């Protein structure tokens, strides 16, 4: 898997947490309610539908 820098990770999780907080379908099975925690879980599993474009 592509390794992300700490900045990329922050942006991806941030963007995903925003999506989840606004009602996007969650891609992991969890009881967690905090969108940021959910986004972190999704990131660890590598299922976030967001990536980065590098120059």
């Amino acid at each position, binding site marked *: 898997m592509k390794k992300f*820098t*700490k*900045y*990329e990770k*922050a*942006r*991806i999780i*941030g*963007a995903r947490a925003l999506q989840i907080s606004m009602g996007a*379908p*969650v*891609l*992991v*099975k969890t009881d967690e309610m905090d969108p940021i925690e959910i986004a972190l879980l999704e990131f660890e*599993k590598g*299922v*976030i*539908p*967001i*990536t*980065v*474009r*590098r*120059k």
Partner: protein
Amino acid sequence: MAKHDTIRALLKRGVSEELAEKVADSGLTLGDLKGLTASELCKKISTSEEIAAEILQLAGSKPKKAITSETSLKSKIEQLEVPRSVKDALIKRLSEREFTPTQIERILRMTIEEYERIKIDPCEAVGIVAAQSIGEPGTQMTMRTFHYAGVAEIYVTLGLPRIIEIVDARKTPSTPMMVIKLNEEYRNDKTKAHALASRIEATYPSHLGDIVTLPDEMLIRIEIDESAMEKRGLGIDDLIEKIKGQGKFNADIDLDEDGKSINIRPKEYSYRSLLQLRGRLTSTNPSSGILIAGIKDITRVVIRHEGDEYTLYTEGSALKDVIRIEGVDGARTRTNNINEIENVLGIEAARNAIINEMVNTLGEQGLNVDIRHLMLVADMMTVDGEVKQIGRHGIAGEKASILSRAAFEVTVSHLLDASLYGYVDELKGVTENVIVGQPIKLGTGDVELVAKPYGKVVD
């Protein structure tokens, strides 16, 4: 075979340390063991016959495992993706002691891990971090300019003034100095080192004797100090010739009848011309003095016995002339004049000189700044192929962006120029984006997100 080798050879064959030492202590070697029987051996090292038999059996066997040979270790280290300095350190440290292959494997793995950990991520604001990391220790530096830099009698600018000098890329430092190392033939020979020193040090007539003015005779007499002449390997004829050639005087220069003085008589019979002549002869100033021997810019040379060699420290610097002199080791000779290094050795050498000078100046004050911050500064100063200062005439003044330059100094004239000539600002830097109110291209601000097709729900 030495005792130590015997023990090692036995250990490799599986003999316990205690027994191996016993065998070696009794003066036996691995070769001797082959010709012995168990009963003979047990008498010699005073053990039971069974143990002796065991030793003999083990000694006859092949060594268990060859300890990782140096060449394979080297090639393994060479393949790692780490900088040269880390590789060299690994090779050095790992060959100092013996390690088992698993230990080596582990050391190398941990080295890589640690190296990856300390690498900084892309988009990091390295410039800001470097500036802070140099600036903070900078506040602790003494303002005192003068210090003895380990060498008696030679003044060197140190501390904050020296740092300012370096980043301002001054053409000449306020106290230029050189450390001249000598080559093999000269470095251990005191007389040769002294001879070399006097060939380098600028010598003027007043160093070679007393200069006496005799107004009633309209005469200036140099009373030669023979020991001073001898020290520098000069003859009286050389001196006369030099004075004639260098001085271009309107005067008669002759050897006195006693053969130990030089008489100089101005052709023009006036008191003024006599005084003028005296002024030139007594001057030790590089621009007006008459150079008899040595290099003009090097005003003083101090010889020191350092470690196991003689080293010359000079006041004044003339790298180009010095490295040409027979007996000087040009590769190890240094100057603190960065501009000179750039001209003589090139921009890469200048970059290294900037780094070294900064590390040494900070280190001398007991400040430890990570070398990578200083490398960044040196890189920025030299990236264009010539050393330029950090400041309005250098890095800050030559930024590509108009808005960035306008934010730095003389805002109106920069903006006026830009509007007159129709410049375009690409908004790539930090300052420009702050001005127009956009996220800056640093850290998370420089990440471009793209959507990826939806995946499936996972557990």
